[in-house]
């Protein structure tokens, strides 16, 4: 059972490969070729995940969250929520109740350890126990619309130090709605547009607890290519970011996490990278280039930072997760 080396055109193509390789060697040795762009200031610690539908495999993962035990929760385009340990070992998984309209695109944990799932195309926020039990009676929303308590495409839900819930949405009314711990509507802010305080797809929210002004709500305003911060009453505190691909610029920022020093890590869907910023918007470093190799990204959707300072990057179109240290 021998498989011969192909002859004819295939063999010729191999020869031309050899010629090209030789040419590259010559040019490379001559120092005329630009070396591949450095991936940046991060260091890859682990990469895992492969495309598939078997347990543990991933199909365009889109959101991530980390529980108090350091386990990573991912949701992908098959609407499966899968749990991994920090080394990427699959622990368990389950599916959201319905997914034919579309799949969830936001995950976070509240202070009671419940997993909040932004069930985007069903206009609701689902709540699960870490073991995957759906707490149906605690589901928020489920009705599409622009009234209080109704939602468009839900992007993310986060909880502040007082247990209030902030839900981001887009579609026709890009806004943030605030709910009491009991699920009552409290207030809303934003609106579709490019003005300060408005949004075009607030893709992800993060609450910064313990600032002098109280809790601060950070929002990545994806299609305005910027980041905005608000207090818990929806007053705009800061806004920065311009469209572009240079350091300090943003192109479709999709997720944001904060470290203990208050610095921000932002993953850029369009720039295929993660960028670190000071709270004032000064770029501190970049990690990632476009590609499929380790240390490269293809439309990253989400980030998660664990208590040890390890950053998990959801490399969506590569169907995997990369764990890095900045």
């Amino acid at each position, binding site marked *: 059972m021998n498989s011969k*080396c192909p002859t004819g055109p295939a063999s010729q193509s191999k020869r031309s490969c050899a010629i090209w390789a030789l040419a590259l060697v010559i040019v490379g040795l001559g120092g005329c070729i630009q070396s591949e762009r450095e991936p940046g200031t991060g260091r890859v610690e682990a990469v895992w995940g492969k495309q*598939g539908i078997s347990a543990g495999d991933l199909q365009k993962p889109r959101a991530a969250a980390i529980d108090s035990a350091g386990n990573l929760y991912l949701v992908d385009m098959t609407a499966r929520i899968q749990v991994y340990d920090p080394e990427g070992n699959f622990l368990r998984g389950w599916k959201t109740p319905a997914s034919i309209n579309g799949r969830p695109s936001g995950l976070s944990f509240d202070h009671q350890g419940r997993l909040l799932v932004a069930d985007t195309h069903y206009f609701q926020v689902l709540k699960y126990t870490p073991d995957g039990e759906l707490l149906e009676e605690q589901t928020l929303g489920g009705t*599409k619309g622009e009234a209080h308590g109704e939602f468009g*495409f839900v992007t993310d839900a986060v909880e502040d130090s007082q247990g209030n819930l902030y839900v981001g949405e887009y*579609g026709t009314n890009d806004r943030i709605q605030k709910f009491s711990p009991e699920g009552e509507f409290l207030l809303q802010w934003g609106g579709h547009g490019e003005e300060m305080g408005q949004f075009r797809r607030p893709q992800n929210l993060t609450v910064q607890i313990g600032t002098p002004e109280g809790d601060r709500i950070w929002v990545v305003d994806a299609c305005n290519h910027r980041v905005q911060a608000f207090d818990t009453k929806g007053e705009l505190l800061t806004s920065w970011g311009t469209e572009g691909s240079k350091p300090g610029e943003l192109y479709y920022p999709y997720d944001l996490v904060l470290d203990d020093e208050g610095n921000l890590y932002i993953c850029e869907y369009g720039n295929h990278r993660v960028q670190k910023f000071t709270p004032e918007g000064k770029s501190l470093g970049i990690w990632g280039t476009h590609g499929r190799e380790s240390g490269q990204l*293809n439309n990253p959707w989400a980030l998660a930072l664990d208590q040890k300072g390890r950053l998990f990057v959801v490399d969506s179109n590569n169907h995997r997760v990369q764990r890095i240290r900045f």
Partner: protein
Amino acid sequence: MFEHSLTFDSPGYLLFLAVIPLMWWLGYRSLAGLGRWRRWAALTLRTLVALLIIFALADVQYQRRSDRLSVIYLLDQSLSIPGEQREAMLDYVKASLENNRNTARNDRYAVVVFGRDAEVEVPLVDVNIPIGRVESLLDPEYSDVGTAIQRAQAIFPHDAARRIVLVTDGNQNLGDAYREARAATDAGTSLWVVPVMIAPRSEVAVEKVDLPSGVRRGQPFEMRVVLSNDDQSTEGSGSGGKPVRGKLIITRSAGDRTEIVTEDTVEIPPGKRVFSISEKIDQPDFYTYTARFSPENTADDGMTQNNRATAFSHVRGKGHVLLIENWETPGGFDTMANRLREKDIEVTLRGSDRLFTSLAELQRYDAVILGNVSRSSGSDADNVASFSDDQIEMLVRNTRELGCGLVMIGGPDTYGAGGWNGTELEKAMPVDFQIKSAKVVPVGALVLMMHAGEMPDSNYWQKRISVESIKLLGNRDFCGMVQWNGSDQWLWGQSKGGLLRTGPNRKMMLARVDRMAIGDMPAFDGAMAMAAKGFAGLPPGEVSVKHMIIISDGDPTPPKNSTIQALIKQKAKVTTVAVRSHGALGSKTMQDIAKRTGGKYYAVSSAKALPKIYQKEARRVSRPLVYEPKPPVQPYEVTQHDILKGIDITTIPPIKGYVLTTIKENPLVEVILRAPKPEMEKNATVLASWTYGAGRSVALTTDAGALWTDEWTAWDGYDKLFSQAVRWAMRPTGDTGNYNVATDVRDGKTQIIVTALDAQEEFLNDQSMSATVVTPDRKPLPVRIEQTAPGRYVGEFDSEEAGSYLVVVNPGPGKAPIRTGVNIGYSAEYRDTETNLTLLESLADLQAGDGPVGELLEGGLNDVSTSSDDGSAPNPFRFDLPPAVANQSIWPWLVVLGSCLFWSDIFIRRVQLNLEWLKPVWLKVTNFVLRRQVEAPVPETMSRLRSRKQEVGKQIASRQASTRFEEPESEQAADKSATAASTGPQATEAVLKPAAAKPQAMGQDSKEDEGISYTERLLKAKKQVWRDRDQDKDNR
């Protein structure tokens, strides 16, 4: 799991290795000047280069031997196997995988299901994938085991041993299973066979309906229906089978009419039974007779698919035409239809939403008229109607092979303006629908935006609609496609604004579409802004229609107002197609975009509607093909033609518009009427005709008394023009009464039998006859007809496939063709009622290369399924095959490596590296590591001064030393010196002092002695001393 080694395909080249010692001998001497280390390094590199080149010449192969096994299950899903058995196959596969697959060895498996074609149900994997039911779409009416084996062979990887497990009843009716199996086993694949044992059962079938094809109006004829009863359930019992009772219904259909001829309860005894029915036809038409049998007890009949048979017969009458009009504007052709009827032409008017579905359906018509009908029509996704590619092909075949006339009447929705560009229909007409001249027609621009990733089979559908659109555009139209691939990107022409001319780039565009991979676009804005910019960058004044079509699930963020305004400013309309939009929310954004830009919004629930929508929308870009001259122009006669016979064409009223076309450059094409404007004559055709294959087609580019020719209906020549055009195109309608055509189907072949008689009912001999058959897949099949007896002519063709075979017999020059048809009611799949064990045994006996022969799993599928459950069934993952050997030619890499090493060899020989800098570096490093105290470095200026001082001192000392051998400046000095020498050492010192005290004189001496070497001066001084001594001796 793997063993690795190297082998050589051309080992003869290894003899060149003998050159290496010689190279060493020569090199060792010639490289002696390099020093020890460099010489050895150069020799080593040279040897490596020589080795690599010799290995490359010998075609060295990287060989990997593996003990992994790949098993592919081939499951026969054809209908000759009962449903429960087909389901049991999956259970067998599941049990077999669960109990037998060696996961430690990473054994892989795949599941391929087959009928007429073979589809991969589970790709080759090494993990357990849940197998629920067969998802692949197959044609189960045939079995092609050979194709399935071929498919499996293509899937197998090279790095594992291969085994096929074939689960089938062996009843193949296509392909050659044994030949393919032998090819596979010769290549080393092991073949195991799991027979599906079919239980004996009774089977009743309607074998055929037999009737004469050339039936005359009002003439009684006999129709025969043959039924068979093959009862095997009682075989062996000695009873010889039992009769089956049931209802036999015979119907007669013509067009939309269906009548029951007879309906009786009959009893079919074992064997065959023929029923004869006397029949008479009063109305001329093309008739289809269908016989259907329904058993009283369904258990008496194993398969119901073979309980139906049909046959055709044709009774000639006056001309009959089918007029297809746009269903959205019914009544537009009523005037014309009525006028034709007045001229004794039967007209059937039909809307484009109720099109024909088979070629047989068209046989009752002598001509088909397309009256201002576009390829696609409709206002939303639910009611879009369109001619499918199959229907267009039927129209064309109906003309080319079966001689039917084809007339296309113009209007704003026809020809190129109706989306017919690039279709088969264009080939059948005397004019092309594209315009090549830039002077005649302005162009359109189309941007396609793709974002339908969440739709099932999204890549397939997005590619398909892209292809449809690109094909429809004219050569000079611009086309661009924008999609998300990491960022918003044009698929082509990135550096040229994204929109390119379609004509010269069509192939490239289609190739790019074929390769495109579409990502999840976050926002509409980027792509739409690119489109607006692309439209703005088009040649000013040239593009008259700008159109954009967006397909999306609706969840990208809505575009900015400024982007919409930019598109409006460009007069670009945006049509949006929402597929699986995420509820009303997703569709609202898309509705808004369409509404604001003047485009159209479609909500699509089934992807099948997409090609029709894209055909319709892409047509907007081709609107410029409509030409409306002001003032209206009067067409003029170009060629005298039968269509214009008896018409005074100078009285024809002017036309207000027509569709621009390009006349075909073919001698058969006749331009009958042309418009004086535009001046490009080849584009200004109003009426043209030609003969296309066995039929004729006519193109009228203006309409028939509607928008553009409203004055024609009152014109005297109207009736004549249209009736003569239609009659010219129609099939010949002469009497064919002297020729009787019969068909006989037997064993997958059909005989055409023609009996030819002259007017005196005498046999006609030595006639030149031919026939053309259009097969069920609409392929023309020429058939040779030869005389076999007086007045009897016979031809034969293969008719294995089920469906309608339409036959046109041409009895000879000048005689009207005779049409008939044969219907093969069911596939051979329904004829087989038992397992073909002979074939299966022969397959299992084949030896896998050097390995063992295959296995036939005795007992068949049912036994194997049971034993697989408990793990006792034979294990297809048993490794009893020779290990797989995968070879990979690595000579290119050796050449590359050799080239690199050759460089190194040159480098070592030509470049001597100064490594002295290493010593101080090393010292520094060791001092640092060992923490040695190092003296403070002397400042650079001080060191320079010291160095200079030492240098000057050396110079002085050198000069002083040199003066000891210096020749005296003059004789006087020489005398003094000689005197001093004679007085002893003290005197010598005294002589030296004045010399030292007169540096200037010394300097002068130096200048004078310039050019005399130090040795010469020394020799001169010595000679002088010896001369002085001699003089002293003489003096004594």
